[in-house]
């Protein structure tokens, strides 16, 4: 089915990678600007986010260029700017890559160094990264949402879903980096601080996943409550629909319910009884991997569903 589509795996991969990059930079920028309960590991986590962010966007953009009928003409996108979401989006991507690379450069020295010029540059760039990170996450959804001819996509719910999925993908990528490169143990004070940070990331991620679930349910509910093309289009993800298996299996179960369950299992004891948070390495690795697979599956299901459905009248 996929090779018959106008927008195939390369576009799907781009939408996913752009979301992860946008999410990673948002996590990093929020931390740099002082949000959340993070101790001494704040800088380390912000650093992971900053280093991760440009990579998926650059790789994804290269994939997108390859998907063009005429890849060597990609620069035509920058010869003018119009109101096409793709035109606006290409400028966003251009700025995002530039700013995120500069931002990552400010993280090369390991020490946080307060008050110095580097720190000021980092904070300044973080302020630029925030709106452009959101812009990236939002525009990837508006890109597909801008077409009334594609009823599955033409919905604000898709925008919210993509933004939350981008954020949770960003958090997941940072969590994964923390789990892999920032092993628990060692000095108890450092270890406790690290675990607290992992806990903060995990709770944020669980909230994002539950938000995604809520939006998916609203999307399905409103599709069901409408008549005509939207309802018909949404039926491809209902039981028996062409995309039911990847949607319920990979997006909902593997990408949302399982990682949210894992994270809740770890977070709940502290939430309920104030007991000390225990970090489980398996959860720290498996949950983000599941989230990232789910994030890709979400783009896959949405991009394919929009193309195999259409207006039902003639």
């Amino acid at each position, binding site marked *: 089915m996929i090779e018959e589509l106008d927008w195939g795996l390369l576009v799907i991969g781009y939408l996913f990678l752009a979301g992860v990059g946008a999410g990673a930079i948002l996590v990093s920028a929020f931390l740099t600007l002082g949000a959340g309960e993070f101790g001494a590991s704040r800088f380390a986590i912000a650093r992971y986010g900053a280093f991760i962010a440009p990579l998926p966007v650059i790789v994804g953009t290269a994939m997108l260029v390859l998907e063009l009928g*005429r890849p060597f003409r990609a620069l035509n996108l920058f010869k003018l700017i119009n109101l096409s979401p793709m035109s606006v989006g290409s400028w966003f991507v251009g700025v995002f890559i530039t700013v995120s690379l500069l931002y990552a450069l400010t993280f090369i020295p390991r020490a946080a160094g307060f008050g110095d010029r580097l720190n000021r540059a980092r904070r300044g760039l973080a302020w630029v990264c925030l709106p452009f990170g959101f812009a990236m996450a939002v525009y990837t959804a508006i890109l597909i949402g801008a077409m009334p001819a594609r009823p599955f996509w033409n919905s604000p719910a898709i925008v919210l879903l993509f933004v939350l999925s981008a954020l949770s993908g960003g958090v997941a990528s940072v969590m994964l980096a923390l789990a892999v490169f920032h092993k628990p143990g060692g000095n108890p004070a450092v270890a406790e601080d690290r675990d607290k940070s992992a806990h903060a990331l995990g709770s944020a991620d669980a909230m994002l996943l539950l938000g995604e679930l809520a939006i998916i349910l609203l999307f399905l509910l409103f599709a069901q409550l409408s008549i005509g093309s939207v309802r018909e289009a949404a039926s491809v993800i209902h039981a028996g629909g062409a995309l039911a298996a990847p949607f319920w299996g990979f997006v909902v179960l593997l990408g949302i319910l399982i990682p949210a369950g894992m994270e809740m299992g770890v977070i709940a004891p502290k939430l309920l009884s104030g007991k000390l948070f225990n970090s489980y390495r398996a959860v720290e690795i498996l949950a983000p991997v599941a989230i990232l697979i789910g994030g890709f599956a979400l783009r896959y299901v949405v991009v394919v569903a929009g193309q195999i*459905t259409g*207006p039902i009248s003639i």
Partner: protein
Amino acid sequence: MNKDRKTEIARRRFLKGLVLGAGGSAVAAVPALPRTPSGRLGKVRYGMLIDLRKCVGCQSCSVACKSEFDVPLGVSRSWVEYVEKGVYPHVGRTFLPRLCNHCSDPPCVSVCPTGATYKREQDGIVVVDDGVCIGCKYCILACPYDARFLNPVTRFADKCDFCIHRVSKGLVPSCVNTCPAGARIFGDLNDPGSQISKTMARNRVSVLRPEMGTQPNVYYIGADHTEPGNVKRHEAGEVRVVTHRRDPERR
């Protein structure tokens, strides 16, 4: 071509049955666009009217268009769908010739990031500038009529262009020229005196997917708007649409 329209048509009919390779006279025999009398409302707005009471589903238009532009195998600028419905003995088959609608509010234009797709100011024809198009396929997805495709040879977005090269020389489009049933009328919708405007004024016409808000400029007389989904309505009986395209479904 400077003669008045009646004699022009009579002469055309006569010559059509005559020699084909007779040099100058064969060129003059090609049906011409009527000269535009004064009284037009504003600019030219080209449109097409397809009279399905006359259409015999012969696909001559599809073939003429294919050869006019050397359209590669597997894709079409112009095609004819068959709509078959009913349960024997109460059955029917109608035809629905399809092409770009040269919409007045074209979504393909509003999504094009490079400005390659645009609607011509002077006559409303929606065109793709293949010197600019990057082949991103956005317009292909945005068109509610599946009228566009990525040309597998040139790798640009492609579609019906109302035969600009012919129309600009005062000729009718190739599919109109070839239609043996005379089912297709091409002309200026802004000119109340044009054949298309006069026929539209006398008949009940419809456009495809009007709810998309695109305001198509391709009109039909007697179109059957039955969809396979209408099979749920029992009076339609069985409904089968043969698209005659690679994609067996309308999108």
